């Protein structure tokens, strides 16, 4: 009898205990909410978040693997002015000597970084449309214009290296990169064939035209917004570069005329008064927001391109200026501000260094400078003119004399003028990622340098290979050979 009582007593205690235990289980814990990231459900749910999404697109463009560093470095070191100092496959030696295999990390990473920016952009465009009720229509279209500016910029640089051949070789008929305009969040839509260069350029121009129409003329005078966010002048300036690359000189002139005054002192008559600054150094030094800087990518100690990505590191450590390159140009005087400020002469086995951008942690990376627009316009005028175009020459001399007041060019022929302008680009834009663009748009041969041979437009190395992973995972993709 007592045993039974005991048993009942014990069972009751244990049952009560079990009941407490089981009721204590917290099924809500099966669906925890992450505390450090936002889920896609709420990522566009406030005006602040939408603005942050737009800045997120800029930050993708700014990646050290892309326009925050390497994408510009690759453009430069393909050219003839640099010598590789470290022979390191991680830091562009195989870009420099044109021996990139299709599975090279640099080939893979730049492709990846460019398309990451494009997909972010596409996601944000979709997100803005889906949440249009949260912000004013003008704000929405201005945001979209910023995103489309970034997308155009990304496609421009991707196609500059991965398109099968330069635009002018076949007027854009050859295969370029896949054109992705819808956001990807799942494996659907993986397979997509390459578009032609014409199609890509059409899209770039459509994006830039939308951007020009909807971007603000200015963000006001505070902070660095007028430099690190796209505005009307930035879209127009980028169009001059795009048209120049396409060889459409008339359109270069049309666009450039919107932001370059007819006569000296050359400056933008509309929107922000962009113009050359008196001292070239100040376009590259703190606060990095001079009137010459139309669009730059901002860097801070805690928001830098990262190790082995920054222009500064490459120009002061990984590469040096080769003695036989532009450095040997006798007309580039020793007193030129671009030499006195930026060149550290060779010493012993150490090659000459280029300190235009020397501090990766703080140095904003210039993407569009007024000097380039002036030279774009000068070249277009020079090429379309019948003789030596006076305004083209004035623009050229303005750029030169800003750094070297003692030189005044006076070419006697149109061709001489063009070659002076091209030469000036090599000096003025050195280290900013223009050389390969310039060689390729003219269908020229990359000259030999040190142990690297020359590369003719017919060579398979003239352009980059398509990344091996893309070829593997996207069956519609075709290689560059």
């Amino acid at each position, binding site marked *: 009898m007592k045993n039974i009582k005991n048993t009942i007593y014990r069972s009751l205690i244990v049952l009560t205990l079990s009941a407490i235990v089981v009721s204590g289980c917290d099924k809500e814990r*099966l669906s925890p909410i992450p505390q450090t990231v936002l889920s896609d459900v709420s990522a566009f749910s406030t005006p602040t978040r939408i603005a942050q999404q737009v800045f997120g697109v800029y930050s993708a463009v700014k990646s050290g693997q892309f326009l925050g560093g390497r994408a510009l470095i690759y453009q430069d070191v393909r050219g003839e002015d640099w010598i590789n100092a470290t022979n390191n496959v991680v830091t562009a030696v195989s870009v420099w000597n044109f021996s990139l295999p299709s599975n090279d990390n640099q080939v893979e990473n730049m492709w990846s970084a460019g398309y990451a920016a494009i997909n972010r952009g596409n996601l944000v465009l979709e997100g803005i449309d889906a949440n249009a009720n949260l912000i004013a229509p003008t704000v929405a279209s201005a945001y979209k214009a910023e995103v489309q500016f970034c997308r155009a910029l990304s496609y421009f640089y991707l196609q500059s290296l991965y398109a099968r051949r330069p635009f002018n070789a076949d007027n854009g008929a050859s295969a370029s990169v896949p054109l992705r305009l819808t956001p990807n969040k799942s494996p659907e839509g993986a397979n997509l064939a390459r578009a032609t260069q014409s199609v890509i350029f059409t899209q770039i121009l459509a994006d830039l035209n939308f951007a020009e129409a909807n971007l603000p003329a200015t963000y006001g005078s505070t902070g660095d917004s007028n430099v690190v966010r796209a505005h009307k002048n930035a879209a127009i300036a980028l169009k001059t570069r795009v048209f120049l690359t396409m060889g459409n000189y008339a359109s270069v002139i049309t666009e450039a005329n919107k932001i370059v005054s007819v006569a000296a002192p050359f400056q933008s008559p509309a929107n922000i008064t962009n113009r050359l600054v008196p001292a070239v150094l100040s376009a590259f030094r703190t606060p990095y927001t001079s009137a010459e800087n139309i669009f730059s990518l901002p860097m801070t100690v805690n*928001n830098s391109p990262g190790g082995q990505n*920054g222009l500064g590191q490459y120009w002061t450590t990984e590469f040096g200026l080769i003695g036989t390159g532009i450095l040997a140009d006798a007309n580039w005087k020793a007193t030129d501000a671009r030499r006195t400020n930026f060149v550290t002469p060779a010493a012993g086995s150490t090659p000459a260094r280029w300190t235009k951008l020397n501090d990766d942690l703080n140095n904003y990376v210039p993407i569009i400078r007024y000097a380039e627009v002036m030279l774009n316009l000068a070249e277009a005028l020079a090429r379309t003119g019948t003789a030596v175009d006076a305004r083209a020459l004035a623009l050229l001399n303005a750029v030169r004399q800003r750094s070297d007041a003692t030189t005044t060019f006076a070419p006697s022929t149109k061709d001489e003028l063009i070659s002076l302008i091209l030469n000036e680009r090599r000096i003025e834009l050195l280290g900013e990622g223009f050389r390969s663009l310039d060689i390729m748009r003219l269908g020229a041969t990359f000259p030999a340098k040190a142990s690297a041979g020359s590369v003719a437009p017919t060579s398979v190395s003239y352009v980059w290979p398509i990344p091996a992973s893309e070829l593997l995972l996207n069956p519609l993709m075709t290689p560059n050979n």
Partner: protein
Amino acid sequence: MKKCLTTLVVLFMLKLCAFAQERTVTGKISNEQGAPIQSVSVVSPGGKSGTQTDADGNYKITLPEGVKSLTFSAIDFETVTKSLGKASVLSFSLISSNTSLSEVVVTGYGTQRRKNVTGSISSINADKIKNVPVQSFEQALSGKAAGLNVILPNGVLNNPPVVRIRGVNSISGSSQPLVVIDGVPVLSGDISTNLSANNALGNLNPNDIEDIQVLKDAASSAIYGSRAANGVMLITTKKGKSGKAKVSYDAWVGSTKAFKVFDVLGARDYVDIKNEAIRNQPGEVFNGHVPGSPIFFLDTLNGQIVDTKWADEVYQTGFQQNHNLSVSGANAGTRYFFSTNYSDQEGMIQTNTFKRMQMRMNIEQKVNTWVTVGANFNFSRGNTQSPSTGSLPGTPFNTAGAARLAFITAPNVSAYRPDGRYNIMGIDNPTLRNQFNQIGRNRNRINSGLINPVMVRELNKITSIVDQLQGDIYADFKIIKGLNFRSQYGVNWQSGLDETFYNSLHGDGIGSNSTIDDDGSAFSVAGRYNISNFQNYLTYDFSLQNQHNFNITAGHEEQRTEFNRFGASRSGLTDQFFNEFQGNFTINNNPIANLLTENYLLSYFGRFNYNFKNKYVLSLTGRRDGYSAFAEGKKWGNFYGGGVSWNVSEEKFWDNIKKTVNAFRVRGSYGQVGNLAAVGNFGSLSTFSAFQYGLGYPTLAFSQAGNQNLKWETSTKLDIGFSFGLFKDRITGEFSYYNTKLTDLIIDRPLPSSMGVPGNSIQANAANMYNRGIELTLGAKVIEKGDFTWNTSINITTQKNEVTALAPGVPEIIGITGLERTNITRVGQPVGSFFVVKTNGVDPTTGQRVFVDGRGRDVLFNFAEAPANRWKYRDGTIAPPISIASDGVVDPTSLPKVYGGFSNNFYFKGFDLNVDAFYSLGNKVYFGSRAGMLDQRFWNNFQEVKNRWQKPGDVTNIPRIVYNDNFSNGSAIPIDANLFSGNFLRVRSIAFGYTLQQNWVDKINISSIRLYAQALNPFIITNYPGVDPEISVNGNTALTPGVDRNTVGQARTFTLGINVGF
């Protein structure tokens, strides 16, 4: 949950009351063999009167009138209540309750009699782990059980071994088995965030382990449901045994050094070889260099030729010591085990150390006749320090990796300059110093490009400390005979602090900027990694008609895992005095290693064991798991396992042969379990993470593509086997066939990068594979003659792995070792096969390496040509450059086909000799270090380079050397010439001991003393040309096994030890 615990405590405090008058009862209590039992508790009902038996088993108790019965209880014996009648003497024997561990198997949420186990379980006894000079117990398990493969990836202290039960069971997740200590699942693997490895399991003192059960099949592991696919290791720590207090002191001291180091060129040979390579490269032009003239020179410092043996600057002979003290025992109501451990080990690599301070308390108290409470607690601090070794997963190409620097650094340069300062480029000029960040080149005309390993070793500091509290409290309620309820709350709380300091003069601390002084950096990461586990289960053991035996378990478990970690980074050291994070730096960088995540597992489980006369056994297990990381709507999974066995030798018809075959049992099991380890805690969600653009522009950006169908991986396990004993178990054996089908395996499904999805991948349940094989274990008492005994055991496991499906549209997954694509996973091949370009020797006419392209054509490579002309077919026409993507071939031999171990124990009088070996057969190892060591940059080479091709007609395997050639020998792309057989037989340990004569130790009041000498890794039999075929630079990853690239090998350790019992 707190509420539940409070209730428990209240329950324990409940006391029952009763009443009183007087009489005396005496008696003697003995065990089944008639020996007296000390400390038997004798209590009247209600506990009003009570006493204990003395050392002779006698008791005497005075009882109040009316007491009709007495309850006798003792640890390890069944509690008995005897009615008194009128007798004043009551003597009898108690029946042992705790069958020894050799007969009982811990099976997870309970125990089972070994012969009634239907599943496949291997047991490893404490003796196999004790005294071995390792840091964590798993490191001592190689070859110890069939189906269990334990590889030590290298000799870095407290680096987690690669532990696999029946093969690779996951592709992107870990194949690490679930480790459960005294019923509480714990964290395993390296929990350090820096380059000083710190294995979470290194906090368990190997000497505290009583035994380890390895659950391999579905019948045994299904009770762990969604965590069982990789198998389960159940660890039981030591408990006190009845009798007087037992004190043990175990200690060893030893020395350790590298098992083998590479044979590299000395300075003279180096200079000759490199200058020959320069002569062979007319295209090599740099400032001021005359083509063909030498650029490497034998240097003299203070009149002596510089010939640095860099291995001596990296490796050392390390000193190690380890001390254990434990006290254990049990009396009427209490069972206790206390221990403490101090371990101080230097590694074979300079500045690599491991220290552990540990304390354990295991205690169990009978509260009354039906309630027992207990606690097992372990507090431990594991402290490691290490230089950058380049040997941890993901680090083989680290510029300061000591393993590589020990061999590739030029021997004709010195660690120090003649003035005693460190030898680095531009030592007096910070700008140049930063530009180069290289070791000084002495007289060489070309920079070496490498870090000075001595300087970074001496000035940098990388440490990791983990404080761990691991343990549980529990209560057992015996409701009626056979029906028991257990409630257990367990924790595994780990707090880590990882500190890294990189000096500002050289190495990893050099910032990338020449104008901002950001040289010298420090990183501190603090993390809390907590598991809380609460279990409640009922067990009912009963028999019907003494024939039908049942054991039924039903229970509930919930487990919460929370990781909370943050880290800070500073740079711009202001003074060489500081070498701590808290010193002075000018720049505070972004936080690093931040982590805030959690998961939650809620489960219900049940097990039904039935046997008929211990002959026919049936076991069914089911578990339902809800797990937070699975996608909405896929949170819950059901898992099951079932097994049958037949003790054939219990049958009548067996009686005839019982003299020969005393035991014979067949068994089989089948079931489906899961693996949740590969699912990220928030893996099913698409997320946007926040950062910044420049200054003042906070950002949100797409950071993870979530898969809304993400769920557990499924493992369907079939196991069939038999076991036998011959000649009264003189020879025992166990055979199993296993076939594990793995489906819904999670892979990072790669997406074309043009989609722009973060990481270019999305997690998906999208792959299938299988593991099949057999296991055989044989044990024999070969000789038992007088004073001489010889026991031997051997185990053999075969494994065959094949991937049977990958995601649609995903033909392969590339496995990456640092910068190289070394492995590939393709359908129809084993997971993580090698991926190499085939070669066809060296062309005797030109000395050029012959590669074989994807179409099978020979392509000759000549680095001395201009880049466009380097690759040519045999007919001299230009060929496209060889690349791994277009010309790589699969070599499916990265996993061993057969592995196992064997053990021999000899005893003669007081002497004992124990030899443990393990082996691995049928796999190759990719010797990537050889590719580096034949690289024709400024790197030093193997002696082997002397066999290079020099003139037409030379037949050799080393191509003509051309300066800067990193292609011909596989440094730029993996080639098959660097795949070597990884077969080995390694004697893991030899221990020779002597136990002092009993009569001698009795005189000094000590119960036993054993002295021993032990060698860990004394020797290996292998044809592998590298330092070690037992190696894995990629750690535990499934996608990149078998790679030996820039990593250190194993150490060889000799110890002298003592085991004293008081």
